[in-house]
């Protein structure tokens, strides 16, 4: 391969990457799901206590505990609160105060409103993609 061609391939790929990045940052991730101030506070509590080491959101995270994407709608707020406030044999009690727990619940509620995971009513195509139907 000639040096010129190598450079050509390289810089074409870099240019494509940069423009792709721009689209991903803007139109690709433009959604209606903006976070409330309470949810942002909750996100901080979630991070400060490293919940993601044991839990997943959208299936991403550590695997000791369950996925929390839809925990509010499937289990209800009270159930979630009792886990967070008391811990379990496997989950530590983080001794969070009431505002922190409220914030966490707001954050988990926000995440819940954005998606449905795992989506149990998928339709597969022969070419390997998935048609999402949002009905549970």
């Amino acid at each position: 391969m000639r040096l010129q061609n190598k450079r050509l391939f390289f810089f074409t790929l870099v240019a494509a990457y940069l423009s792709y990045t721009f689209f991903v940052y803007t139109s690709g991730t433009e959604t209606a799901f903006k976070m409330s101030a309470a949810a942002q506070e909750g996100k901080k509590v979630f991070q400060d206590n490293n919940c993601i080491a044991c839990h997943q959101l959208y299936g991403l995270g550590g695997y000791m505990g369950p996925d929390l994407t839809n925990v509010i709608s499937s289990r209800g707020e009270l159930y979630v609160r009792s886990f967070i406030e008391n811990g379990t044999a496997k989950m530590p009690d983080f001794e969070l105060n009431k505002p922190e727990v409220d914030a966490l619940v707001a954050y988990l509620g926000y995440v819940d409103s954005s998606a449905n995971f795992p989506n149990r009513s998928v339709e597969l195509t022969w070419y390997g993609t998935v048609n999402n139907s949002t009905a549970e």
Partner: protein
Amino acid sequence: MIRTGRLFIITGITSLALALVFGALAAIQFIYPDFLPEIAFYKARPLHVSLAVAWIFSCGIGAVYNYLELNNLIRFRYLGLLHWLSFVVTGILIISSYFQGTFGGREYWEFPPVFSIPILASWILFGVVFFSSVIRVKNWPVYLWMWATGIVIFFVTFLEANLWIFDYFSNSVVRELTVQWKSYGSLVGSWNMLVYGAGLYVMEKISEDKSYAQSGIAFILYFVGLTNLFFNWAHHIYAVPSSGWIGTTAYIISMTELFIIGRIIWKWKNTLSTAKKFANRQAYLFILASDIWVFLNLALAILISIPAVNVYTHGTHVTVAHAMGSTIGINSMILVAFILHHFGWNNSGWVRVCFWIINLSLGVFWITLIGSGILKGAALMNGESFSAVMINLSAWFNLFMISGVFLAAGFLALLFHFLFEFLIDFPENLFRKTE
């Protein structure tokens, strides 16, 4: 003059030894969550993962410095030393913050974001040393392209991984997660560039054949790798509701790796005859093992990049099988080969025994992760409760823990052997006479 490359290698070996201890701890806690509560799972996991990644980077960086030093290319040597120093100091600070329970709390880089500043700064030092040194080399072999790419891409993607500190990214979970995995997907590609480059360099030395690293096929594979590095990352986030074209792009690009799989099968006979030729070199043994693990992990990766398969495997230990299968089977094998070759350690029965313990237990380890992942995915899809699933899978997790302990023991035996050999000529082997 002091050999910065070797400083990085020894740092890498130490990091891996610690990573293995915390990995084994995390695996035990999967079954006995009360085990060592001072370092509970949410501390043990980031300690394990960060130290494992530190091993890969440190040794990969060490390989690059070694190349510069052995070929008398290195310039601004003191900046390299400063790079090493800040790597070690930042590493120690990050480990202490995990112990203390101070987190940034985002997957993989679970440390507070301030530590990103010294990491980025030290990387600039690396870039300055590398580019000012190799600028004089004409007609770069493919591994120099790979190292150059890895160095630049790490900087860019690590910066990108920190964009969440701005509201524009963090106040939408969709945007935040998409950008997070966009950066991680490419960042992993950047360390692969460093490590695969080191692997090619070792093969060039073992075979005494310089033509491959200049060949058309080597560059074609490099460009396939680079395309994937840039565009395949969204196969991690099919489940995140960003625009459909992001997932579609990832699906299409991921399938280009079939070309690499095809080539491995096509060249299999060739690989075997090379294997016979170099079977007496222990470094080559590890390269050969990495070839087999490339094949297995690439096949798995391609499979789980198909959205219709991914719906079932995503969020299960199949992903962990992919992550650890590749970082251990591919990256770590290549780096061990590099170390053996670099120090000229050969023909030790000890190394051969470790080789077999590591690879056999890795086989069991990998299969238990895939098996438990598939079963968990299927059960959750059927709506079974998480705790019931975990109880039903406990036999798998036991096997995972046991094979993991053997794997860790095999690696630790090898690493202590390395450290022991290293100490025999210490400190002379850390220095090189300047001409």
